[in-house]
């Protein structure tokens, strides 16, 4: 490869390299170090080994946060993929007002939860929201108190999160669907395969890339899940809807306990790297094989 261009390519990477090394790696290193100190509001260098981690993993709120994230993550990604894909399939049936519908499904993604959380909280409020309206129009028996029930509150977050992300999934799936060769449809019609079977056994495997993209995007937002919990329930009732990022944030700032906060952040980081690294490695191997 040409020297000049290689040099230019290397030069072009300087900002990103700088950011990666100084900001990302630097901050991460600092975070890991602080997690092994007794720092509270300000960082100190009073080494305490893994004490913060012991405290962290004994902490009930942290345990609940991690469980919530796991449950939420799995359900959120599965359901948002399902709904997004379904909406995309429906919109792909040459419906009227396609542009309008697409925009309606997509707009939530443009709004932050800090902004829409209040509206959601109202809607789900057992004395104000949908439940009250149901009562007002005569359905006295309707009980909709999931927002205030410890064992159900996570599902209300789920509803809002799906509302937020399903449109994006739809957009990704729709563009994937539009890219599918029309001859596939002709072939399945000649073979007499019903449409739903075609979608499940032919189309979905073909949209592997779209599913992967949507999953990655949603996975990043799952790990970072913070705003939604703050805006809708602030972790409550009790600690029933706490999430790890909120644990980090609360301890970092409001609670002035950065030692514990960084221990939590480091735990999250290690988990992420443990999951992402093998995937990247596998992908790299695959890419190298394709390259020649």
């Amino acid at each position, binding site marked *: 490869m040409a020297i000049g261009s290689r040099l230019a390519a290397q030069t072009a990477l300087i900002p990103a390299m700088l950011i990666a090394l100084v900001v990302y790696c630097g901050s991460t290193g600092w975070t890991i170090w602080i997690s092994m100190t007794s720092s509270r509001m300000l960082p100190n260098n009073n080494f305490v080994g893994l004490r913060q981690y012991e405290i962290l993993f004994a902490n009930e709120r942290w345990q609940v946060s991690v469980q919530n994230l796991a449950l939420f993550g799995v359900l959120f990604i599965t359901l948002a993929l399902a709904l997004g894909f379904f909406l995309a399939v429906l919109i792909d049936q040459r419906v009227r007002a396609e542009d309008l519908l697409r925009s309606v499904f997509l707009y939530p993604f443009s709004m932050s939860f800090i902004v829409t959380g209040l509206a959601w909280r109202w809607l789900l409020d057992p004395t104000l929201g949908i439940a009250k309206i149901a009562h007002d129009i005569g359905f006295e028996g309707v009980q909709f108190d999931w927002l205030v029930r410890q064992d159900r509150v996570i599902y209300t977050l789920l509803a809002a999160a799906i509302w937020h992300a399903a449109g994006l999934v739809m957009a990704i799936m729709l563009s994937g669907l539009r890219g599918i060769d029309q001859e596939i449809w002709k072939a399945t019609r000649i073979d007499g395969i019903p449409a739903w079977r075609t979608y499940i056994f032919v189309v979905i495997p073909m949209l592997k890339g*779209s599913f992967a993209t949507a999953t990655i995007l949603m996975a990043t937002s799952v790990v970072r899940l913070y705003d939604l919990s703050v805006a809708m329930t602030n972790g409550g009732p009790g600690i029933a809807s706490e999430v790890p990022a909120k644990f980090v944030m609360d301890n970092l700032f409001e609670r002035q306990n950065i030692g514990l906060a960084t221990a939590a952040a480091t735990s999250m980081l290690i988990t992420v790297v443990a999951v992402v690294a093998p995937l990247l490695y596998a992908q790299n191997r695959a890419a190298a094989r394709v390259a020649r």
Partner: protein
Amino acid sequence: MRRNAKWLSAARIGLYAFLVISAAFFLLPLYVMLVTSLKGMPEIREGNMLSLPHAPTVAAWVKAWSSACTGLSCNGIQVGFLNSLKILFPSVTMSIAVGAVTGYALSLWRPRGAAWLFGILMAVAFVPYQVFLFPLVRMFSYVGLNSSLPGIIVVHTIFGLPTMTLIFRNYFAGIPLELIKAARVDGAGFWRIFGAIMLPMAVPIIVVAIILQVTGIWNDFIFGLVFAGRENFPMTVQLNNIVNSTQGEREYNVDMAATILTALVPLGVYFISGRWFVRGIAAGAVKG
């Protein structure tokens, strides 16, 4: 896809019914916000959030825009609107520029350390930003970037980097390598190829990048608060001041109006360019 006419009608009705119900579900929060913003406080206290306002008034909108107090200044969120624009344009441009160049260099050239860099970026895409907040403050103080417009622009560039790099890399990876070879035979170097050939081809993914970054940067609160400096506080800081007062009376109609006003820019971007978004997003997709 065209289907047989026989079962078409019944299925069609079901299809539209599902779409309409879904649309209602998606619009519900926006509707609640809208009608609330048009009501007076007494009517809001009555507590039927879905009912249309008896006597619609835009008073709350006017107040939110021009006279709601955030601290001692009672100029509404209009000041922040200008600040947000001041932050938005350079931040979106910078973050996309750096992401595009990095993605281009990673995908079509094989510079040293590319695999590592990409690995780090991928991992960071999953890390909550908050983790980096504190060290970044310290770093910025060393280089004198705190509380300044350049500071907040750099921050948005830093945190936009993983996603931007990822989508541009995926997009450029889909471009045939022969095109680069042809350009090199034509005598174009790294930057010329980028400017004359790659960028013009990248329009669909640039649209996606713009939408993602406009949304993210416009909705950002914490970075604006920490890094922008009080002269440059974005609209969201003022929105927070209006909506999140901890102690004292709350005017939900003003809250909602301020909220919708703040959301108008990203909303507008989505409604205007949703079509291109759908087209472009596939291009940035991970190749299965």
